[in-house]
């Protein structure tokens, strides 16, 4: 199983590396941008999955880390220096402080109360960003220069930034996979399954939850900074609850606690958002909502759950056989 997963991982990576070669010839540059968005949200979702999927605490305020990462990068690149690392590192630094403090407060609650508390905190950020004139208020910050990798090498070209983000996605995936496979990861799953048992085995569960909350926030921060590099404009929308909600949908649609699943969920939501919004305009969220409800009702384990079911019951072979006899 692990070998199969490694094979799929490498195949997908190869495809993504070669993809920009076809742009402008086989398909328009637009698809590169679409994939870029998948990479960026994918990084965030990997962190989100550590918290929600592995530790079992669904956050409804993850946009606050994303937004903070984006805003800090915007301010750093516009007013300080447009070196890409400066924006990313400052974002990570500020989010470490925010994540640490909020974790202390959020760790006191579980289940729906955790959802509401994280939601409340992210709304606090939204209102601040929306009304604080110094950081642009409701207008956001525009005119952000494109960042440079090192002085002299600009990341302004779409392909350049594509590879830059892809590299981060690969690193984020590797880090998340390592965390999941670590002893810490196993304890996280234990906390999800039965926190009390973990506690009575001698684990400081609230410390573990605080740790994963912080780590998960840092993934979000990185994604936010990359988003600013991709779209040189930030607005309070990056803090909005609907964005947090979208993360939850990506997570559940893909299958919680699998890392690969939420990545697929991200790709599906972004692709669908693109296709459906050309047909239904504003109403495309309705379709997404319907799919979400169907998913919860019939396959709570998301797409990975469906794939697992098919492969375990031999459903795929049955399907192939039927096609052959027909």
């Amino acid at each position, binding site marked *: 199983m692990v070998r199969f997963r490694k094979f799929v991982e490498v195949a997908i990576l190869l495809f993504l590396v070669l993809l920009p070669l076809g742009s402008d010839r086989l398909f328009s540059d637009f698809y590169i941008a679409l994939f870029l968005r998948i990479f960026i949200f994918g990084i965030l979702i990997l962190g989100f999955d550590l918290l929600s999927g592995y530790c079992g605490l669904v956050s409804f305020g993850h946009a606050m880390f994303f937004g903070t990462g984006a805003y800090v990068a915007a301010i750093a690149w516009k007013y300080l220096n447009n070196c890409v690392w400066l924006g990313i590192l400052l974002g990570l630094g500020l989010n470490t402080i925010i994540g640490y403090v909020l974790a202390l407060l959020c760790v006191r609650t579980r289940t729906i109360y955790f959802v509401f508390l994280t939601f409340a905190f992210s709304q606090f950020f939204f209102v601040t960003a929306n009304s604080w004139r110094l950081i642009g208020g409701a207008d956001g910050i525009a005119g952000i220069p494109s960042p440079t990798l090192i002085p002299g090498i600009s990341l302004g070209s779409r392909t350049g930034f594509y590879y830059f983000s892809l590299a981060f996605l690969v690193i984020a995936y590797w880090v998340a996979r*390592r*965390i999941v*496979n*670590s*002893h*810490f*990861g*196993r*304890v996280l*799953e*234990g906390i999800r*399954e*039965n926190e*009390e*048992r*973990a*506690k*009575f*085995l*001698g*684990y*400081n*569960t609230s410390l*573990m939850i605080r*740790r994963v909350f912080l780590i998960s926030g840092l993934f979000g921060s990185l994604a936010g900074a990359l988003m600013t590099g991709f779209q040189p404009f930030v607005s309070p929308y990056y803090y909005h609850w609907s964005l947090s909600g979208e993360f939850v949908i990506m997570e559940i649609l893909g299958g919680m606690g699998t890392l690969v699943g939420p990545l697929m969920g991200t790709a599906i939501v972004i692709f669908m958002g693109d296709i459906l919004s050309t047909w239904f305009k504003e109403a495309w969220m309705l379709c997404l909502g319907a799919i979400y409800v169907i998913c919860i009702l019939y396959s709570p384990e998301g797409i990975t759950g469906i794939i697992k079911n098919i492969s375990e019951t031999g459903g795929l072979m049955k399907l192939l056989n039927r096609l052959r006899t027909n």
Partner: protein
Amino acid sequence: MLLKAENISLNIGGLHILRDVNLEIEKGDITSIIGPNGAGKTTLFNVITGRISPTNGKVWLKGKNITNLPSFQIARIGIARSFQITNIFARMSVFDNVCIAAQTNFPFRCSIFSQVSKDLKTSRKAEEILELIGLKTVRNKLACELSHGDQRRLEIGMSLAIEPAFLMLDEPTSGMSPAETEATIDLIRSVGKEVTICLIEHKINLVMTLSNRIIVLNLGEKIAEGRPEDVASDDKVQRIYLGTT
């Protein structure tokens, strides 16, 4: 002395759940706590393991005051417990269940940087435990797929895997068939050679054969304590709990 509890009292509202309970447990003993429903047996367990703070009184383990410590620290110092209602990691494999417990013994127990797959120490320990509790053949099953009896044995196994100095079992054989009960008694007996055990039980035959000390609680008070035969012949105990013929 391994564990000492002094004047443990617990009031909730105006209700006295426990009144001045004293407890002394020697190393190597198998102690049973018996008493009618609502006597405060499980509550006493909860106080000792840090799930509830007592209104009054102190608990020492190995000479260390553990009153009011958080439960995870008490577990680290050396008390493992099982619960009246089975408490396991339901959707994880039996092997992983034991591994989570077993890895607490090592410095990398919750490290982010160590990899589970390269860790032979934990798996070796887990294999030993699975062998001991007789669940080796079902190691890859999910814990929730096991029979009730096996789940309870798994919970005992997990408690053992953290290598405690003192093991507290809350009705380890509840809901078990006679055959399963028999197997569990054997397990407790063999474990008891190395670990000090305290258990709550209602099956009086089991209590009499297994333990070398019995404590009887009623309405939050300790009404008798001693060797099984002494407790069994105690008038008060017969009247309140065992019944007279």
